[in-house]
């Protein structure tokens, strides 16, 4: 077990190293440097910009800049956000927990929903219910993340205004509410983003869960279970599902990158002030330090999540550790 974790940890380190290096190279290969963009204003002379470059160390050799950037990133120094006029680290420290809340809730809900749907499908493979659920899932799987968010927003925040369209709390009234009122206010703001992200994730999870179930269905022990008189439904629920659940933890790890992308669009549409909205706004403001830092932090979070998923599988299934 220890060897497995060590090996997997080494892989995560490679990922983080690759992301940092690629991020650094991209920023430096791109036309124009952060200073020229941030100080592209009338009245700022080239001499002033040069002075800023020197104070940020942008005139040093590339190798030295790279080491400095890796060292700083490792210590959590992610630079200065030109659009917020605050250290990038502080901006991200505020946004990250909000994204984790959104993504965490959606992962829990979509797994529960996805597994239920897959079981319902497998109870009668090829039947009416299987086909229709399959079509609906494929449709959800094909819908652009941001478009589903826009449509849900349009329907349930504007046409039938039962949920707030944006933000995490009511901008005016929240401070005047009682404790339970504030809690309800927060929950109301969570409903639409979490529902959208859950629907998007359920499509992928359920499709994979169904094929994981389909894979164990022809096993000899399933045949035995049915031969000894179990109903098909009971055999699926009690025998097949337990054996097909483990692969979906691995899937959760593999699906995290897509989930991060989905969260970005959902946050953008619902103005949910997490990492995704931060990145989207940083693009508009051309705030390079903030763009690179949010890409970096999100990638590291995804790598760490995938690592956790793999370790969880190895802890549950000894076969994984051996191979």
């Amino acid at each position: 077990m220890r060897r497995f974790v060590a090996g997997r940890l080494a892989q995560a380190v490679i990922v983080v190293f690759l992301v940092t290096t690629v991020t650094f190279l991209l920023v430096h290969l791109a036309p124009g440097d952060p200073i020229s963009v941030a100080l592209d204003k009338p009245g700022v002379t080239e001499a002033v910009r040069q002075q800023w470059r020197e104070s940020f160390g942008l005139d040093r050799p590339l190798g030295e800049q790279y080491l400095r950037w890796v060292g700083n990133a490792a210590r959590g120094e992610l630079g200065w956000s030109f659009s917020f006029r605050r250290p990038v680290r502080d901006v991200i420290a505020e946004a990250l927990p909000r994204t984790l809340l959104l993504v965490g809730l959606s992962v829990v809900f979509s797994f529960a929903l996805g597994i239920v749907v897959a079981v319902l499908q497998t109870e009668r493979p090829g039947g009416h219910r299987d086909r229709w659920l399959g079509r609906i899932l494929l449709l959800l799987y094909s819908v652009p993340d941001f478009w589903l968010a826009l449509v849900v927003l349009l329907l349930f925040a504007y046409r039938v205004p039962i949920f707030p369209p944006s933000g995490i709390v009511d901008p005016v009234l929240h401070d005047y509410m009682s404790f339970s009122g504030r809690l309800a206010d927060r929950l109301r703001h969570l409903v639409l983003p979490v529902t959208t992200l859950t629907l998007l994730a359920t499509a992928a999870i359920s499709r994979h869960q169904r094929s994981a179930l389909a894979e164990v269905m022809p096993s000899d022990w399933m045949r035995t279970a049915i031969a000894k008189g179990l109903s098909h439904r009971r055999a699926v629920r009690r025998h097949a599902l337990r054996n097909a659940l483990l692969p979906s933890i691995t899937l959760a790890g593999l699906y995290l990158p897509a989930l991060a992308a989905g969260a970005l669009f959902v946050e953008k549409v619902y103005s949910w002030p997490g990492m995704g909205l931060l990145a989207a706004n940083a693009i508009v403001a051309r705030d390079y330090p903030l763009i690179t830092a949010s890409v970096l932090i999100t990638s590291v979070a995804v790598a760490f999540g995938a690592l956790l998923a793999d370790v969880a599988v190895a802890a549950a299934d000894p076969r994984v550790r051996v191979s």
Partner: protein
Amino acid sequence: MGSPAPFASIIGPRRTFSRLLHDSRTRIAIVVLLIVALSAVFAPLLAPYDPTAQLDIVRLPSQPPSFAHPMGTDPYSRDVLSRLLYGGRISLSVGLGAVLLAMSFGIAVGAAAGFIGGAVDAVLMRFVDAALSIPRLLVLIMVASLWGSLGLIPLTLLMAGTGWFAVSRLVRAETLALREREFIVAARALGASPTRILVRHVLPNVAAPALVAATLGIANVILLEAGLSYLGIGVRPPTASWGAIIQDGAERVSDLWWLTLFPGLAILVTVFACNALGDALRDAFDPRQLPRGTDATLAKEA
């Protein structure tokens, strides 16, 4: 059932093809994709207006659907139907171009890694593993925002450059499995050169999973391109693309619903058709999967 069917008729190419054609998903997908492709190719003939022309910025901006403009106009008074037709060209050409490039590269890398093995394989696959765990959208966002809006060809190259990892992994796994099979060992024993074995025996057997991956890959690239355009960093404006039309109305979704609805449906229908075709292909190529309409526990015999 009846008499036992000969092995070849269960997994042979003819059986695969007839399974594919008898699948309702295939037929629907092909019809939909043909309509989308034809309307993109003949966009100049079909579009009632120039997709980038600002028709009348005083009287025509943000008009709801009408007879003159069946899908309304955008805030710059451009005709949405015309933009939608031309937008299909962007989605399809980026999707097809990027996937063709990514497939060629991914197959080459995967076959090389699987066939050569050793250190080459280890290094390549560690790299691919790492690359696969980075969210593709984030890399695209970085590049597209740092370089400003991209042209069509850089965008296609970017999508291809970030899209070959999964295929190379798939092809490597297939190649590794094939390498030990009797017919390859026999070919080697007969003195066939490694190149000949690769081209004549390995690649044809890799074609099926690669084709499935390609079909699903096109769907993915279309979604990613739409996403980038929605974020305002897709193909350079004023070029029409489906995501860009939605972006033009995104600030006022509640008033300008037609700017969200029509291009969104266009993306959804196209991507759905690609995914359905990919699913149908996979089921047709892989008889081990649950056959539709048979009892699951009998799947092994089917």
